[in-house]
């Protein structure tokens, strides 16, 4: 009797464990091929039912290019899966133009996908899955690597050329009253200003708008045997293939009645800023950036429309001052200019910025230039132009013989011999870098600016202060708790600069100074 009890007890206890194993074998454990090794540029997450509420099963990863290739072999075209809308464009939805009801959408997918897969395998071809779990998998988004594509100036130029500058081919406005699209010359702007991430009422999502417009247009061109853009996913969304998109040698300017030179000024006359207005070389900045959106992030209006002196809701309450000076924002003047300091040839000096005195009057006046007497110019743009032309865009320099050719550092000789630094060579390298572009040329125009890269907080002269004057011995009392001692100052400057510029040389001790035999031969030191 008792033995029987034990036997049944054991059986009941082991049942769940057995189920668990069975479950692992039957319901899971099939490794998805594309999860780690591959990632797909042509992956689409099918979640057509998301519009009707919470999904009961995970979204389906659908590989679009894989299907188009398979259909091509069977001499089938896009109409196999896509229907045409009233404009004779292919709807980007699968086998429908609009979502009707949840059940109907679900049936469209299930019947069509499974039937086609069955037909393909019946005719002996490679085919897709037909059971639920094979399509509805977890964590499929990990295998997506679609690189977003930007219509940069070069691509835009190629399109305008192909369409003989007919902007209305792509650009349109929306009239909410007639609920129609219309085109207005001079109002062209970025698609993204209206088309956002998600489809809103009467407003397609960016992705839907782009695929409807671009793919259909490319397809028509192919049908008409013209030069055409890609119609496959990987054609636009593969990071490697993006590199291969041919660039125009001379990129035409985007014409939208924008000024060549603008005067950035406070638009609230009742509030005097007492700062000089800033002349802005709009034309040059168009060349520096790929798209207008880099600066004009919400619309192609002038900055001061949304960024007023005190800030308004339309400009997210960002004031004019913040919009131009915020360091962390790429769309602000200083933010963008400071990001350029991260370039390899600049960062050597600019990595030590935190210790530099910067906000001097001179620094502000670089942009807030002193304005000529009133009445000199009638037009703002003339004044801007005058100010911009008057700028000096290269750095002054000392005569070569005034710059010490070598600097020998021997104050701390102990374990290592003195270190010699090719001083003049370094100065000349930096001067060359500075003069290689207008931004750095203008901001380093004083001949001591380049010196101050290393000789910071020092008098501006041919003979700057010695490092040891400020950087003393360890534990020396100082108001600045974090002031480095002399050895740290030397090494911090040299190694810091080499490291940031990724020069790859002078990283080990003996690269700059040889070991001193006297010290190293003393066995205590080994």
């Amino acid at each position, binding site marked *: 009797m008792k033995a029987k009890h034990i036997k049944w007890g054991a059986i009941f206890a082991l049942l769940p464990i057995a189920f668990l194993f069975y479950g692992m074998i039957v319901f899971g454990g099939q490794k998805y091929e594309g999860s780690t090794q591959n990632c797909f540029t042509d992956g689409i997450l099918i979640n057509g039912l998301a519009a009707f509420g919470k999904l009961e099963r995970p979204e389906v990863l659908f590989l679009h290019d894989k299907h188009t290739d398979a259909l091509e072999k069977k001499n089938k075209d896009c109409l196999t899966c896509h229907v045409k809308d009233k404009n004779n464009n292919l709807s980007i939805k699968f086998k429908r133009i609009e979502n009707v009801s949840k059940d109907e959408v679900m049936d469209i997918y299930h019947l069509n996908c499974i039937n086609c897969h069955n037909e393909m395998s019946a005719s002996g071809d490679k085919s897709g899955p037909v059971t639920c779990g094979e399509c509805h998998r977890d964590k499929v988004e990990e295998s997506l690597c679609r690189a977003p594509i930007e219509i940069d100036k070069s691509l835009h130029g190629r399109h305008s050329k192909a369409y003989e500058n007919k902007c209305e081919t792509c650009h349109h406005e929306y009239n909410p009253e007639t609920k129609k699209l219309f085109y207005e010359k001079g109002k062209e702007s970025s698609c993204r200003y209206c088309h956002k991430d998600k489809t809103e009422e009467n407003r397609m999502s960016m992705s839907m708008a782009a695929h409807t417009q671009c793919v259909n247009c490319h397809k028509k061109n192919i049908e008409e045997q013209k030069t055409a853009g890609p119609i496959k996913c990987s054609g636009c969304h593969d990071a490697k293939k993006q590199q291969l998109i041919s660039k125009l040698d001379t990129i035409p300017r985007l014409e939208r009645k924008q000024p060549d030179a603008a005067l950035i000024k406070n638009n609230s006359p009742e509030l005097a800023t007492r700062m000089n207005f800033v002349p802005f070389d709009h034309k040059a900045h168009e060349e520096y950036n790929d798209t207008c959106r880099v600066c004009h992030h919400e619309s192609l209006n002038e900055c001061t429309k949304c960024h007023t002196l005190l800030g308004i809701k339309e400009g997210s309450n960002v004031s004019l001052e913040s919009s131009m000076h915020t360091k962390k924002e790429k769309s602000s003047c200083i933010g963008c200019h400071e990001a350029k300091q991260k370039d390899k040839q600049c960062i050597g000096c600019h990595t030590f910025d*935190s210790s530099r005195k910067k906000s001097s009057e001179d620094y502000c006046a670089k942009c807030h230039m002193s304005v000529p007497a009133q009445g000199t110019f009638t037009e703002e743009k003339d004044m801007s132009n005058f100010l911009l032309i008057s700028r000096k865009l290269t750095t002054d320099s000392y005569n070569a013989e005034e710059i010490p050719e070598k600097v020998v550092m021997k104050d701390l000789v102990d374990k290592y011999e003195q270190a010699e630094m090719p001083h003049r060579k370094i100065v000349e390298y930096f001067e060359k870098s500075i003069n290689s572009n207008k931004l750095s040329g203008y901001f380093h125009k004083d001949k001591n600016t380049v010196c101050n890269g290393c000789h910071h907080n020092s008098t501006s002269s041919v003979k700057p202060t010695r490092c040891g004057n400020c950087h003393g011995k*360890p*534990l020396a009392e100082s108001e600045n*708790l*974090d002031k*480095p*001692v002399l*050895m*740290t*100052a030397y*090494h*911090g400057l040299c*190694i810091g600069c080499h*490291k940031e510029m*990724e020069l790859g040389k002078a*990283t*080990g*001790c003996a690269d700059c100074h040889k*070991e001193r035999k006297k010290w*190293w031969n003393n*066995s*205590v*030191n*080994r």
Partner: protein
Amino acid sequence: MSRRKFLGLAGAAGASALIGSSAHSASNKHFEGYPNSFGVLHDITLCVGCRSCEAACNRVNELPQPDVSFSDVSVLEQKRRTSSDAFTVVNKHANLKNSKVPIFNKIQCNHCLEPACASVCFVKAFKKTEQGPVLYDPSVCVGCRYCMVACPFDIPTYEYDKAFTPRVRKCTLCYPRIIEGLLPGCVESCPTGALKFGKRDDLIKIARDRISKKPEKYIEHIYGEHEMGGTSWLYLSGVPFKQLGMREDLGIKPAPEYTAGALSGVPIVVGLWPVLLTGIYAMTKRKEKVADLEKKECVKEAIEKEKADANAKLAKAMEKAETDKKTAIDKAVKKALEEASKAKVEG
């Protein structure tokens, strides 16, 4: 000992155990560290892995010469730990942010504000000094190596090769040097300023300042500010500390706080139990004595009773014998008298 006396003593012992001041190592209040104590800030972003600190440490602590010269940086290819011959080692880590520039990190004793090693040491061989260093006294050490188990940073090491005088070995934050106003050996020799010696409070300010000046360079975490209740050694890094093999699961409680509850019972156990047990022992002893006495008395009584009974019996027997005798005499007299009278009659 009388019952009254014992209870009085026990009460006194209990009260003293409750009132008595408890040591830091077993208290459960948060200790903020000694004011003005020293520490070192290790800015990992500045370390270039030159091993100067290792060489200096070896020199100032007069440790045995290693097989490989300190100028040879190829040893960094392997992950190393502190040992009884090396109180500090530098390790090299892959940089996930920029594969071209590896990251170097120095490890040594972190000199916790409330050290786990000290809290588990039952002979008080470890002591947190006011200056900051956690020091070890080999003269009292019994070699149990609890400290090595307790340390969350795996720092204390042991001289396994010494049969008779093995010691626990670890960095001392160069206590002998800092009380003379010198820098710790490693800090003095660091060429890049990756190590900065100073008052711990100042170092925290400096660390915060560096983070705020270069938010893109540092992660916003000063390792050691709160870990294990805070350590005298602080770290700044450009990548999460977990990537450098530093534990981020330690929490902010000092080790003693976890054990304070259990350890605060120790004085009671150690102080009160002997008294209690002695009392119980004395009481049992006394009980035995009393029982013995009673037993003896009982026995005496019994014996006496027995004796009395015996005497009574004897007396009775004697009496009976007496009466028997008397009766016999009487009988005999009677008989004689009868015979005499008979003879008279006949005669």
